[in-house]
C-alpha cells in the first residue's frame, strides 16, 4: 500500500515535526512552481518505498508563508529533513531520485 504524504499546516506543523518517530522530510512547495511539480512523483515514490524509515510531508508556502519564513525558505522547492524535531538537512532546488536518495542515505537503514 502506498504510504500517503502528510499535509502540514500551521495547525499541525510543530506537533507533527516534534512527535515524529522517523526523520521527516518537509517539501516546501507551491502550485505555481514547475520544479516542485517535477519532484512530486519522486517524493511519492520515496514515501512508498521508504515507508517506516522516513516520513514525507509537504507544506504549501502560499498558504503558510509564516512557516516558510520561520525556516528562511526563499526558494522552492526547498526540502528540509527534521530529525527528532531538529533541522538535520536542507536541500534547495529540485533533484532526481538517485541524487535525493544519496542525500537521504544518512537517514535510511542500509538496505540494498
Amino acid at each position: 500500500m502506498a504510504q500517503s504524504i502528510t499535509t502540514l499546516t500551521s495547525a499541525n506543523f510543530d506537533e507533527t515535526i516534534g512527535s515524529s518517530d522517523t526523520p521527516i522530510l518537509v517539501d516546501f512547495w507551491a502550485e505555481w512552481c514547475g520544479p516542485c511539480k517535477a519532484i512530486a512523483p519522486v517524493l511519492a515514490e520515496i514515501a512508498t518505498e521508504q515507508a517506516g524509515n522516513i516520513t514525507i510531508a509537504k507544506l504549501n508556502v502560499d498558504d503558510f508563508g509564516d512557516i516558510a519564513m520561520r525556516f528562511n525558505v526563499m526558494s522552492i522547492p526547498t526540502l528540509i529533513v527534521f530529525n527528532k524535531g531538529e533541522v538535520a538537512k536542507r536541500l534547495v532546488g529540485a533533484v532526481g531520485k538517485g541524487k535525493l536518495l544519496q542525500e537521504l542515505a544518512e537517514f535510511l537503514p542500509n538496505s540494498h
Partner: protein
Amino acid sequence: MAIHHKVLIIGSGPAGLTAAIYTARAGLLPLVIEGEPSSTSDQPGGQLMLTTEVENFPGFPEGIMGPELMTRCREQAARFGAEFITEKVTRVDFSSRPFRAWVRETEYSADSVIVSTGAQSLMLGLPEEPRLIGHGLSTCATCDGFFFRGQEIAVVGGGDSALEEAQFLTRFASKVHLIVRRDALRASKIMQERALANEKISIIWNSTVSKIHGDDKVAGVELTNTQTGATSELGVTGLFIAIGHRPNTDLFKGVLDMEDSGYLITKPGSTYTNIDGVFACGDVQDHTYRQAITAAGSGCMAALDSERWLEHQH
C-alpha cells in the same frame, strides 16, 4: 543485456518531444530519456519549464504557460507510443552500432540516436554563488519571485529571458533593477518596450555584478562599471541571473563534433552530426534562433532525417 529501441531520443524539450511525436507516429516506438528534475533548465521539458506565459507559439492566441505546453507535447508523444525514462544519460558510446547509452548501470541501445539535450542557464561564476543559491540568489523567477514581496531586487542580463523575469518579478518586488553589461539590450523590441514602460523596472547600464554580499542570505551586490572600472554598491535582497545559456554537451565531448562554445555542429540544412545515424536538434545545436518553435521545427527535421536514414540501412 541492453534494452534496444530503433530510435533513442536524449532530452525532452520542444525539439526532443517533437522528434518523439514524429518518430512515434512513424511507428518507430522511440525511447525518450528525458532527463531528471532540477531547478535549472536542464530538466524534463527543458527551458520552458521555468517560464510563464508563452505568447509566440503559433496556435495559442491567448498564450499558454510554458510547463503546460511541454506537458501537452509529452502527452502527444506518449499517445503515439513514445516511451519515457525520467533519468539522465550518464555515458554514451557511438563508436559502433547499435549505438549505446547508459543511465548509471543500465544499458540502452538504438539503431539511431537523436540528441536534443538543450542548453542551461549560465551562472556568473562568483565564488559566493553556491552558498547563496536559494538564499536570495536564484535562476528561477517563477519559482522564487513570491518570496520577494515588497522587496528591492535585481536581475542580471539584457536578453529576452532577463526582461521577462524582470517583468514577472514586478508582480512581487517593490523595485527591480536590471543590470546590463552593455549600453543596449539584446532583447526583442516588444520586450524592451514593455520593460521600459514598467515603472518598477530601472536599468543600470554598462555594469556587471562583481560580488554578492551576505553570509546566509543576499544582502546587496557590488557592481563594476564595464567602461570605467569603477565599483558601486546596490542594496538588494534578491538577485536573479539570466545572462544566457550554455549547451548541455558535456556527455558528447570527444564523440560529436562541436564548436569551441560547446554547441554541436550539424550539416547545414539538416540535423546530421559527424556520426552517421546520430542526429542533433534544438538549442544544443542552435545558438542563433533558440525559440521553442525553431527547436520544435528542427526536432521534426531530426525525426524525418532519422526515419529516412533507417530506411536505407541493412
